[in-house]
């Protein structure tokens, strides 16, 4: 399977609590091309993990649409979502151990994950091939308790990609890892993307991880706040025409400030009238 594209439009998700509701996502418009590697960034509580969970079909959006490849998630039934996760979407939860059956080895876990496709005539990727991809073949039969955190995380990756999905979702796949382990995980992600063309979306707080991803999307207050391409940061125009400004710009342009947009050859320039100070221009 090749990579799957991801597209959201006006995605809203509200958590229903006992006495109040919490809007985790307040209209996310995002497109990820097939085979892309994207890091979702943002402060805690911004809605990154919620977005990832919605991509995995683990939650239903309160409003808006999600399209994974040809699948419109909001219209899929529960069994269809099960099948989607079993074939086309791999998920790595935060905390390696949460992804693994504790009493099985990595090899057995991979085989277990492939179990949902057995007997359906699907061609399964050999377990060893999967393990080779994450460089864990020699430790595949060791008890989980004897594996290092990095090995466990790569094991979790192996399990998530065992069915060779078109989309791999990872929630903090490098958290609580040392540098070497983190690098190994990132290398494994890159190998997966390169070898199988799998679209990869990971949530991370780690700026080093973000820096090594070709594209970053910053979620802020439940919306797409910014994007980074090859290390360069961009503001993103929302579907309603608004442009969330970066925090450091907002610090100088307090709410209520009047600005003008001035078009030039290089694009649009944001001008504050009173002092005629030119803010950082952003090419749109």
């Amino acid at each position, binding site marked *: 399977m090749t990579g799957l594209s991801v597209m959201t439009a006006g995605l809203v998700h509200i958590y229903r609590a006992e006495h109040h509701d919490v809007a985790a996502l307040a209209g996310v418009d995002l497109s990820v091309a097939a085979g892309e590697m994207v890091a979702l960034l943002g402060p805690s509580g911004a809605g990154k993990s919620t977005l990832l*969970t919605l991509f*995995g079909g*683990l*939650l239903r959006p309160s409003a808006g649409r999600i399209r994974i490849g040809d699948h419109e998630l909001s219209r899929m039934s*529960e*069994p269809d979502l*099960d*099948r*989607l*996760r*079993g*074939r086309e979407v791999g*998920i790595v*939860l935060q905390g390696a151990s*949460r*992804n*693994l*059956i*504790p*009493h*099985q080895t990595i090899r057995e876990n991979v085989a*277990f*994950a492939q*179990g*949902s*496709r057995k007997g359906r005539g699907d061609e399964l990727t050999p377990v060893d091939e999967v393990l080779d991809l994450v460089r864990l073949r020699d430790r595949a039969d060791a008890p989980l308790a004897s594996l290092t955190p990095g090995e466990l995380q790569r094991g979790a990756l192996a*399990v998530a990609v065992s*069915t060779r999905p078109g989309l791999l979702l990872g929630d903090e796949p490098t958290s609580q890892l040392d540098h070497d382990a983190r690098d190994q995980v990132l290398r494994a992600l890159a190998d997966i993307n390169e070898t199988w063309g799998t679209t990869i979306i990971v949530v991370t707080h780690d700026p080093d991880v973000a820096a090594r991803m070709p594209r970053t999307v910053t979620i802020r207050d439940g919306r797409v706040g910014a994007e980074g391409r090859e290390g360069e940061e961009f503001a993103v125009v929302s579907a309603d025409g608004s442009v969330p400004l970066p925090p450091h710009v907002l610090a100088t342009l307090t709410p209520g400030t009047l600005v003008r947009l001035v078009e030039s050859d290089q694009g649009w320039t944001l001008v504050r009238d009173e002092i005629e100070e030119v803010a950082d221009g952003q090419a749109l």
Partner: protein
Amino acid sequence: MWKAIRYRGGQSLVLVLISALVATCAAFAPLFSRSLDQALLRATLGRMDAADLKLSVLASRTREPTLTANEVEAQLPAGLSQWYHPGISMMTAETEVVPVAGRRPSPVRLVARDDVCEHLTLSAGACPSDASGILVSDADATRWSWTVGTTLPVGEEGGGQAPDTVVGIYTVKDDPDYWLRTELQGKSGTLVDYDGDLSPGVDDFVVAPAGLGPGWTGAQLSVDHRLKESLITLDSLGAAGRAVEAIRPPPQASVDSPLPEIATTVVNGKRLVRQLVPLLIAQLVAVALAVLVLVAGAAVAQRRPEIAVSRLRGRSRDASRRLVMAELGLTVLLGLPLGVALAVGLSELVRRFVLPPGVPFELGWLVPVAALVAGLASLAVVYAAARPVLRESIASLLRSVPPTTTSRTLRVGDILLVVLAAVGVVGIVTDQVSGPMAILTPTLLALAAGALLGAVVVLGATRLGRRALDRGGLATALAGLAVARRPTTRHVLLVVTAVSALVVFAANAVSVADRNRENRAQVTVGAFAALRTGSKDPTAVARVVDQLPAGQREHAMPVGIVAQRDPDSTTTLAARPEQLRRIAFAPPAQAALALDRLALPDQDPVRLEGERLTATAAYSLSPVGFGFGPRPPGVPAAEWVPPVVRGTPLRLGITVTTPEGEVLTRDIGALPATGAGTLAVDAPVLCPRGCRLQSVWVQLAQGQELEGVQGHVDLRAFALDGASLGIDDAAGWRPPRPATTDQSGNSGNVVIDPATGFPIEDAGPLTDSLAMSAAPSGGLRLSFTNTGRNGAVSRADAPEVTPALLSGQVPSGGTPERFEIQSLAGRTTPASAEQRVPALPFVGPRGALVNLDLMLRIGGRLPASGAMEVWIDDAFPGGVAGAEQVLRDKGLEVLSTRSLPEQRRLLDESATGWGLLLALFTATLSLLLAAVMLVVVAMTTGRIVTRDIAALRVAGVSGSDLRGAAVREALTPVVVAGAVGALCGVVGSVLAMPLIPLFDTPAVVPALDLAPAWGVMGASWLVALAVLGVVSVVLALRSARQGDSDRLREAW
């Protein structure tokens, strides 16, 4: 799968154990029931010897004069041989023999029995082979000097030739299986009543079958079949019974078999077992399933991450359910064989060490069925526990803390329990509910209380925690708040309440049943042991006991018992009050026996052990009645000549009682009807073995031409063979009752009608009267009017009406003040009820207790229905065996012995006795289950609890506060639920004990003593609380120890 099971080894083991316990309960019930049924049969058979169990066919020659025993046997169905040994035919005939020429004939029985000579030892001669031969007993041969060849004059019958020639001399070989209680010997040398006279007894004459030919029309024919006991099982009992029913005896024959009675006993016992066992087991199964629900829930909760992973990797809910059920279901099913094995082992223990020998090991088809049902129930519980978890979304499953909260309100199940319990309690109180619902009510009550407690404690703990927090009681506050928010609190409260109630209820049931069995055994036996002697002589038995050496004498008492044929009649129980108080068991649950009211009169009996009785009788008498009135009016005094009575028509006599109890009268003088004078009494006593002076009397002799005599007689100087008897004092005599005055039916005083000159009656009829007073010159004065009735004044050594303590109803025709009982001589005697009680020792609800010494004064030999017993207490040297030996050494035959341990054993070896033991089993097992549940709760909530503790530790709460909080959090629900459970157990006991059968056969007395066994209940509750409390505290301290910062790191 095995790796999965092994991974959570401890939890799997707990699950296997709980499942095994459920299976154990389910499988043990049919095993135990079946064993009890078999034990009942074996116990019933074991109490009966071969003679009791035999099948007897009895016939006579009334219709078929030529019938023989072998012909009777030939008519029995061949199918009998499957259950019975070959029959032993016997013919007997009653006749008489003159043992020695010139003596009175003695009754004798001729016996012809199959293979009899093989069971006799012939000291001389040979087995009779023809119609004339007789075998006589060795005792008779010695006593009467009979030898082989002696010809005896044996009575003939119907013209037949009676056997008459001694051909051998026998003694009986001991072989109970052959003789089946047929006794040939034992009569030689005894005196038997024959034709109104006492004759020497003669042992049976053994003759050949030809000796009882057709001429013996009165011959009795019998065929005895000995039961093949080992072949009689629960299954074969019915078939054997049908074989007996299939017997079509010849005319005038009857069939006697105990099998129907045995079958009835067993069926009754089985009914009780079917009632008790399932109900006791059901309570345990309910507790076990409740614990299994908790454990299965915990097991499923621990698999939430794995379920989440399964769903995450594309497996559907059903596929995930299959995974869970495969693992947990297999774990649960692993408990099945273990549970069945445990049940079999337990049953085997019961069979070997509790039940009587001979109970076969039987698995039966119900055991696998029960195990299957248990397995299915366990699987259903696991399925039910897994279902809600599997219905959760993946996002919910991925949460590190399960989204459960402690409900503060009653759930539907709780309300259902409360309603059922209320229905049960109200139903029992109003007597509208019986059967299973009634027996299950205590458990329902406890479960309902546990459910209510859950709601109350959650609220109460919250408030308590907050209040303690305000007051600075940190440990209490933390414990209260933790109790309020733990989801497992309600489980703990429910199970501990139910278990505590079950333990208390079971302990009380066993204790009360034990007490009642002891009470019944005590009343049934009378004392620690009762040795029934073969003696009919109360005085002799009393003398033997009185002459026992010190150390034995104070532990034994003679007791006379005279029963009547009607089982509902009043049995006389004669004992010495002081000994009875000391040695006999007082009937329980009733007022103490007022034994003082049976005290003997102060006067000692007067023994007339001599030849002649002398006394002086000073009299002043005059005739009364028609013609003896005052001079009629109008008749000149000179012409008035009163009638003259000649002779001595007034009899003066005494009444005596012989040692045999006979009441005899002796005339000691005759007095004139007119005039005054003195008579020197000198009369023979005619008591060769001595007798007791009962009364002195006057009586107008019959056939006199006068209606009556009145006046007085002064008696004094009573002496026997010249020795003063010292009975002149009137105080030694008992004043006659006023009721002794009696209408004679004769005319009263007669006067002459002055108008006509004819006599007319102007007064009532002449009446008898008797009064006693001290004579002015010393001695006893009898003042009387006597018309011919015996006017007696009795010695004051025995009351006219025997004082008695009466149990049950007043005998028919009597009143409490005066009713009739049988004296030890078997004579009807008036008695009065000095106290009425529900029961008396041994005789139970139909008896009259009288003073044995009073009966001995009256004298008499026991009738056939009477017996003399010696009752001993448990301190008699050598116990029962020692007492039996002592009595035998003293020449008393001991016919049988009742003992308290034996009677207890009989009552213990009953369906109810064994069935109630199951209550102990259920209590113990439920306690174990509750302890396991606490461990499981600690395992499942341990991580959360230790994290809480770790967080509090980091926040600066001291270790002692944390330990205190942990201990209180764990212990408080246990203590509170234990207390409520105990209360439920007490209430349940009060409600349900009357519904539990304590005996296989209910008895009128002693009345069931259902008073709660407070001590036992308290002790059992403390044990339960200690077990559960220690487990809780140990687990809590362990949690407190583990609640360090590492735990917090796990959560980061």
